[in-house]
């Protein structure tokens, strides 16, 4: 019976040959090739938990008097959006664990993309022909960060309102078009009625659908171009050595999904995240401290805190306000460099060939060192986003912390880059298999031999 059905399907769709090809497709074996999958499964968890949340979330900014289970806010005027988030947290069955899992999944989603990006970068997987997929991937990162921010803003609590105010101010700082743009996005002067419902449409529909579409392209390109592999016996530029999709890789991958889901749900149940009931409903007259964005926006927050109050003015007008440089120009340059890197590197090295075999990070010491230095720069910016907490913990002046971080922002990348470069040279010179096997003298030897 089942066989007849399948034969009937095959006669019409010619599905057997496609299925056979698909199931026997070979993927190279290396655990780091599953990093992108972690991001994919975190995204899947975002969709699953997010759909649950849409059943109960109300994006309206109309005010109402809260009258629910959470006693300390009883009788307080709140927006419908905030009220519905409190309801999700206290009155909807499993609402709080789903809300928290959704937030944790978002943090892990972007983190997994970053780790995946690092793997692609340090192994040279972005080189031709996969440079096109690098561009697709960077777009996904951009969308993930943006959607994270829109989601962070939806509960309409005090902390997220502060975040929106920062965004509004950043939009205002753009020369000439800033005020128009801020009005256009927010639909009026901050705090504008209706920004939550706009963000909601963007957060649950426009960006997720775009991510879904671009993700499909991303995966189709991996499929079509085949996965790059590390050098090894029998591995050439024109073959792929590894496990078949069915059963080996499929089982691994499905297993990984359940593991990712388990970790996200466990975090959702065990660790409190974004306790909006403490922050209360957004009120433009209130502020709370410490106030930070989620980590993936933290580097921008750090840039805003470190950048000196420099403005460009002319004819008694401020033409370019200070936030423009750290909050618009820096992210712009960051993503311009990310997009351009494969082509920039090909241009710099003169290597325009297609590569299907991956580099080990030590094979390309300059690229690896530049990568580490760049990571150092953005990690320092991220740290700077917590300058007030550092000042509090170390009992020092927050201004002093800021000044020290301003220096470290440039010292740390240079130091990290040079250290990486030295270690990699020693690693190559000593022929050690791992960094931990390398004798410390090898670094010194590799420098001495040059002179």
């Amino acid at each position, binding site marked *: 019976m089942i066989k007849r059905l399948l034969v009937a399907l095959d006669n019409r769709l010619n599905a057997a040959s496609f299925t056979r090809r698909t199931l026997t497709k070979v993927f190279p074996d290396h655990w780091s090739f599953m990093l992108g999958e972690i991001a994919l499964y975190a995204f899947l968890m975002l969709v699953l938990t997010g759909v649950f949340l849409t059943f109960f979330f109300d994006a309206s900014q109309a005010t109402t008097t809260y009258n629910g289970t959470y006693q300390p806010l009883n009788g307080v005027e709140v927006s419908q959006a905030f009220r519905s988030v409190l309801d999700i947290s206290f009155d909807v069955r499993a609402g709080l664990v789903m809300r928290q899992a959704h937030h944790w999944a978002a*943090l892990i989603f972007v983190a997994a993309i970053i780790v995946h990006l690092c793997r692609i970068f340090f192994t040279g997987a972005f080189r031709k022909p996969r440079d096109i997929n690098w561009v697709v991937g960077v777009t996904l990162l951009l969308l993930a960060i943006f959607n994270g921010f829109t989601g962070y803003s939806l509960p309409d609590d005090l902390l997220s309102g502060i975040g929106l105010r920062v965004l509004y101010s950043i939009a205002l700082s753009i020369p000439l078009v800033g005020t128009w743009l801020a009005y256009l996005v927010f639909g009026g002067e901050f705090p504008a009625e209706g920004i939550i419902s706009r963000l909601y449409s963007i957060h649950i529909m426009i960006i997720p659908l775009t991510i879904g579409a671009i993700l499909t392209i991303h995966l189709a390109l991996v499929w079509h171009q085949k996965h790059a592999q590390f050098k090894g016996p029998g591995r050439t530029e024109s073959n792929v050595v590894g496990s078949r999709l069915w059963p080996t890789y499929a089982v691994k991958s499905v297993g990984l999904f359940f593991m990712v889901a388990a970790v996200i749900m466990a975090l959702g149940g065990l660790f*409190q995240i974004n306790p909006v009931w403490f922050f209360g409903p957004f009120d433009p007259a209130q502020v709370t*401290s410490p106030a930070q964005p989620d980590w993936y926006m933290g580097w921008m927050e750090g840039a805003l805190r470190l950048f000196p109050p420099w403005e460009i003015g002319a004819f008694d007008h401020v033409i370019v306000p200070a936030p423009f440089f750290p909050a618009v120009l820096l992210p712009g340059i960051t993503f311009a460099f990310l997009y351009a890197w494969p082509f920039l590197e090909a241009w710099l090295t003169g290597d325009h060939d297609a590569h299907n075999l991956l580099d080990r990070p030590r094979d390309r010491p300059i690229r690896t060192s530049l990568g580490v230095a760049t990571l150092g720069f953005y990690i320092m910016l991220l740290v700077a986003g917590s300058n007030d907490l550092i000042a509090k913990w*170390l009992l020092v002046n927050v201004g002093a912390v800021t000044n020290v971080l301003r220096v470290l922002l440039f010292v740390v990348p240079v130091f990290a880059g040079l250290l990486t470069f030295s270690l990699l040279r020693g690693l190559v010179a000593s022929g050690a298999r791992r960094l931990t096997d390398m004798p410390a003298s090898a670094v010194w030897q590799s420098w001495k031999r040059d002179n």
Partner: protein
Amino acid sequence: MRKWLLLLGILLAGCSYGTTSAPHRPPSDVMGPETRGPVLYARDCAWCHGSNGEGTARGPNLNGDLDGGAYTHFMLSTGRMPLSSPTARAQRRTAVLTPTQIDAVIEHVKTFGGTGPDIPKVEPTTGHLGTGSELYLSNCAACHSATGTGGALTSRRAAPHLTNPDITPVQMAEAMLVGPGCRNNDSTCGFGSGAMPNFDFSETEVNSITAYVSYLQHGGDHGGFAIGRIGPVAEGAVGWIIGLGSILLIGRWVGTRMGDNE
């Protein structure tokens, strides 16, 4: 390196508290209530505040428009005063004086002519939590944080965290009434001391705010480990280290074939 030296210095300074605050003389409860106050004041306070509360170069006067029962009780009952040395940091610790001694010193300080409020009567149970949370978020959260964890201020000052259950409603109310700590331009204030303004709250408002702060002290966390209640910084750390960290370990285990070394 300098940061570490600074940290070491702070730790050493902390140790010196323990050693120097111990050799206080035995409690002078043998004295009568009339002599106890002046004697304790002369022993522990006059060095910096002057023998009649007129203030010296080492410490502010105690006869101003905020000085009186509330201010003195706040400083003594939270252990901020007396300091073990004029340069020590006035921060919360176990009270040095006993309640009887504190009452005696307060009575003596009142004779200096300060016109500040007396120790307030506080009844958090009559307060309204909703009103308290609104007032707290409008007036307190900017420095003490919406979650009560405290926060950094400028000029090496910090707003203390309020989640310590030892902080009594009376102490909270006193802090609101007098705004303890120093003005930013006051050079006699020690390292890290606060700069809290005094607020003009009604009695019912004070009751509601203390009710809400007591609530912050005794609960309010509903989603598992509170991870410090400091928001996205701790959340990011947990997301990366525990979340992605464990997933990476799992991924490495799933993605590595048995017998593979790499």
